[in-house]
């Protein structure tokens, strides 16, 4: 094979760089593996080798995780806006509320943080990137950044302003640092002017960032 390859090259009679110079922007996998990447890869390989689960089962779990989207959280909020009984259940037990309308929310307890006229909630995990993944999918990259994790507790109003969210000074800004075994989602207030809207239309304005609390639903 290599001979033939060389022959072909010889047939070209050129230096590669001259006719089709290729410069590659480094891709993610071009960076050296970190310790934790190596450990995660090795752990996965070992568990497959020991038949704890199969490669396909691992793949399937990742696939399931990736199907979760903020649209699930938006459905919960929209339902709570139109159904006081559901709102009460959501306030007590997010996982049960989600299951009751056919949305799997996993086993990790999730708590709903309801905004009020004098209260706005926002979530952060200063120690890592805890997020209600089982319900609304993977967090955005900025949520995991050191800048967000440190500034959201130190100067939260400045961070919200950078997201375009200005809060009056008489509204309590309550930052929730989810450092333990519970996850959080924000339930914003239903905006004025949406009285005639049905649930599906309401759900459309509850974006991922509303569920984190860095913005508010816009009509």
């Amino acid at each position: 094979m290599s001979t033939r390859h060389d022959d072909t090259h010889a047939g070209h009679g050129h230096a590669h760089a001259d006719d089709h110079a290729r410069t590659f922007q480094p891709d993610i996998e071009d960076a050296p593996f970190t310790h934790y990447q190596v450990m995660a890869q090795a752990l996965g390989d070992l568990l497959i080798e020991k038949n704890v689960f199969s490669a396909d089962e691992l793949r399937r779990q990742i696939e399931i995780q990736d199907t979760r989207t903020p649209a699930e959280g938006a459905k919960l909020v929209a339902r709570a806006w139109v159904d006081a009984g559901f709102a009460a259940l959501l306030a007590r037990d997010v996982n049960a509320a989600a299951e009751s309308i056919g949305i799997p929310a996993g086993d990790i307890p999730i708590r709903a943080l309801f905004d009020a006229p004098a209260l706005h909630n926002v979530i952060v995990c200063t120690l890592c990137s805890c997020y209600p993944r089982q319900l609304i999918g993977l967090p955005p990259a900025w949520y995991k950044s050191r800048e967000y994790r440190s500034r959201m507790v130190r100067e939260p109003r400045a961070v919200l302003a950078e997201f375009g969210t200005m809060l009056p000074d008489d509204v309590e800004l309550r930052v929730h640092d989810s450092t333990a075994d519970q996850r959080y989602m924000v339930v914003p207030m239903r905006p004025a002017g949406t009285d005639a809207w049905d649930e599906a239309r309401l759900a459309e304005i509850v974006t991922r960032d509303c569920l984190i609390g860095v913005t508010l639903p816009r009509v």
Partner: protein
Amino acid sequence: MQVNPPHAPGARVRVRRAYPPGHTRAPYFIRGKAGVVADTAGAYRNPEELAYGVYDGAPLRVYRVCFRQTDLWPGYGGAPCDTLYVDIYENWLESETEVA
């Protein structure tokens, strides 16, 4: 088995000012700071033991503790009513008796 008496909602507590080595789940910026118990968040095995393979330790209560931002940061630039709620395992909390 839980050996510490529980902190009631409204109780004033202080986060231990301790800096043990290894895996911890109490953020540095609240160590030594006082807050008020908002409510409880269940009981879970201690992540500081789980991190080292100790899986049979006693569950710890987790509290949601409310701090005033102005108590945490000198020159806090937000509103005086702003708060920070942190989930804290009971091994990090001490009862705080008002001195003043």
